[in-house]
């Protein structure tokens, strides 16, 4: 009887999409989904039966991931997914495929295994990197517990005996939207690092494994953070690429860097809670040295990433969502409008996306079982490449992923890091 009531209450539970999810749902198509992937390379071979058991145990603890997306008259929304699964699959070489309606029992997360690697792919409307990493960290803990290890529920591993708190399911954008809104000016077109499109559906992934201590020392030499250092390196490479192309009119090179707002606005939410900032360099002003770019990125981040400005931008986004005129437009008509807004604000003025979720921390008992972490930003919106990095222990993993045939961006980026004196080990899914 109690379980029946629980099931009924589960069915009546539904979630409005958060501010970021609105955009990702609007641009969702059968041929494109905003998907990202995290992988943990374990020290031992993955046992798929045990991992499937761990998934089955873990997913019910995370109601915001155990959902399917439905279309309402005016907005999409999430409702609980009672279908069996999600089921663990053997990994494939073309990662981050689109999430299609009516496929895979409407699940918006996927799990894969290959040799020592456990991977999770997540539709961005469900959660941001920090939220997905919390689920993934807990899954890894449950998997290791199922293998017989004692893993405590600490250091970001959720307590499996407790149910999900309301704080984990909150829409933190709504909570922190204030009274003052910041509106960005008219976006300026940025250099688009495009190339020859690969056949549908291919994602070329190249990963570089770099010793974190050496990389941090290099960043420290420049008096900047690792994120700023790598962002500056990517901007430098894109500027050089544009210069090689030889067009007279040069466009600014701008990156979209998602900022985890939890550091500025305390929240335990596992849903999206990010804003992007966009450091840029305009080559029309002259040739920039790497040191100048590093300085520019560093000062841009210091100037733009602060609580007041972030809150004003967050408020502006939420006000857009609450706009009465926008709200009463039917969902079918609203999707192209939001899709255009996404392109105009997030693609047109951006050359590439670079995300760094930071260091992946786990309880001490888990550390011997994990070799390294990997992150992949899935199919880019348009014909370009994206960059992502994550560190675990002393390994910084840096990924360039894209749907273009040319490999000059990753080549120049990793060669640049080698010239800086860093040791880089390469792995890739490109066919030889």
């Amino acid at each position, binding site marked *: 009887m109690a379980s029946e009531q629980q099931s009924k209450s589960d069915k009546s539970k539904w979630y409005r999409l958060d501010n970021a999810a609105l955009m990702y749902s609007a641009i969702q198509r059968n041929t494109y989904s905003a998907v990202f992937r995290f992988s943990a390379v374990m020290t031992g071979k993955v046992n798929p039966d045990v991992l499937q058991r761990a998934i089955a145990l873990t997913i019910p603890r995370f109601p915001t991931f155990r959902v399917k997306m439905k279309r309402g008259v005016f907005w999409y929304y999430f409702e609980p997914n009672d279908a069996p699964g999600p089921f663990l699959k053997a990994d*494939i070489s073309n990662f981050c*495929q689109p999430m299609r309606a009516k496929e895979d029992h409407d699940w918006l997360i996927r799990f894969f295994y290959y040799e020592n690697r456990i991977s999770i792919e997540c539709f961005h409307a469900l959660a941001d990197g920090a939220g997905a990493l919390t689920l993934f960290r807990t899954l890894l803990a449950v998997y290791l517990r199922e293998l017989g290890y004692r893993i405590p529920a600490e250091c970001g591993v959720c307590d499996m005996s407790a149910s999900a708190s309301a704080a984990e399911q909150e829409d933190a954008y709504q909570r922190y939207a204030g009274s003052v809104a910041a509106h960005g000016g008219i976006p300026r077109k940025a250099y688009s690092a495009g190339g020859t499109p690969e056949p549908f559906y291919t994602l070329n992934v190249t990963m570089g494994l770099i010793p974190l201590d050496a990389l941090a020392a290099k960043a420290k030499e420049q008096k900047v953070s690792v994120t700023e250092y790598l962002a500056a390196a990517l901007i430098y490479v894109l500027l050089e690429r544009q210069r090689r192309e030889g067009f007279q009119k040069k466009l600014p090179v701008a990156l979209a860097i998602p900022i985890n707002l939890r550091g500025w606005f305390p929240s335990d939410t596992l849903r999206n809670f990010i804003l992007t900032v966009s450091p840029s360099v305009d080559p029309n002003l002259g040739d920039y040295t790497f040191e100048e770019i590093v300085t520019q990125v560093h000062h841009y981040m210091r100037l733009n990433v602060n609580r007041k400005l972030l809150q004003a931008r967050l408020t502006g986004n939420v006000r857009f969502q609450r706009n009465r005129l926008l709200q009463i437009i039917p969902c079918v008509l609203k999707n192209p409008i939001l899709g255009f807004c996404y392109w105009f604000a997030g693609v047109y003025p951006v050359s590439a996306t670079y995300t760094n979720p930071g260091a992946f921390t786990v309880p001490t008992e888990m550390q011997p079982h994990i070799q390294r972490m990997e992150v992949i930003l899935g199919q880019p919106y348009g014909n370009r490449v994206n960059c992502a990095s994550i560190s675990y222990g002393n390994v910084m993993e840096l990924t360039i992923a894209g749907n273009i045939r040319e490999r000059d961006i990753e*080549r120049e980026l990793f060669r640049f890091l080698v010239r800086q004196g860093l040791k880089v080990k*390469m792995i*890739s899914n490109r066919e*030889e």
Partner: protein
Amino acid sequence: MSYCVNCGVELDETAGVCPLCETQVYHPRYPVNHTASKPFPTNRAEVSMASRREVALLITVMFVSVALCCGLLNLFLRTQRIWSLYIIGAVLTLWVWSVPPLLKNIPLWFRLFLDVIAVGTYVFLIAVDLDGINWFMGLALPILSLLMAVMLFLGISMGGGRSILSGMTLVIGTIGVFLFGVELFIDFWITGAYHPTWSIAVLATSAALVVPLIVVRRVPNLREEARRRFHL
């Protein structure tokens, strides 16, 4: 372990080429390990192309319901005239334009052919309703035939990955010729003789646009300059 001689990066023991520059790996002490597992799986999951059948079905249902509603309404409203045929014909034309391309990869020239046939049929129905077989045969049919000819010409000549410049040249030139023909047919239908006026101006304008485009297309330096100045 091997390092790429060009890039200076360490390579995986299973890599036969550097993933950055595709240089072959050759290290006498550390030959490529063909037995170990690759760092990533090599099996691709083939993603089926998105099905467009549902969209086609949706459009068909919408058109059928519009046609049915109008047909039924015609039974009660202004029954002395079959006005619903105009809407049904328009809906049928739109259906031919939109649905077959969703269901099958039809060659462009055949799609254009079908599209003009659909328009022709619709105009014919109007002519029948208005007792206008004369103007249909004397004016509409020649113009539609010319339209079909130019569409087929464009459909065939634009295929095969033509450059933007060539495409623009073909489209502008074809529009000029088509409008010239339209005035020719109108003049013959009304007066029985050809008195060129506005179509000559259109033809001259399109020639004035086409000639520089051909020159730019033919001269590599100009072509490069145009590409540089107009790149998106």
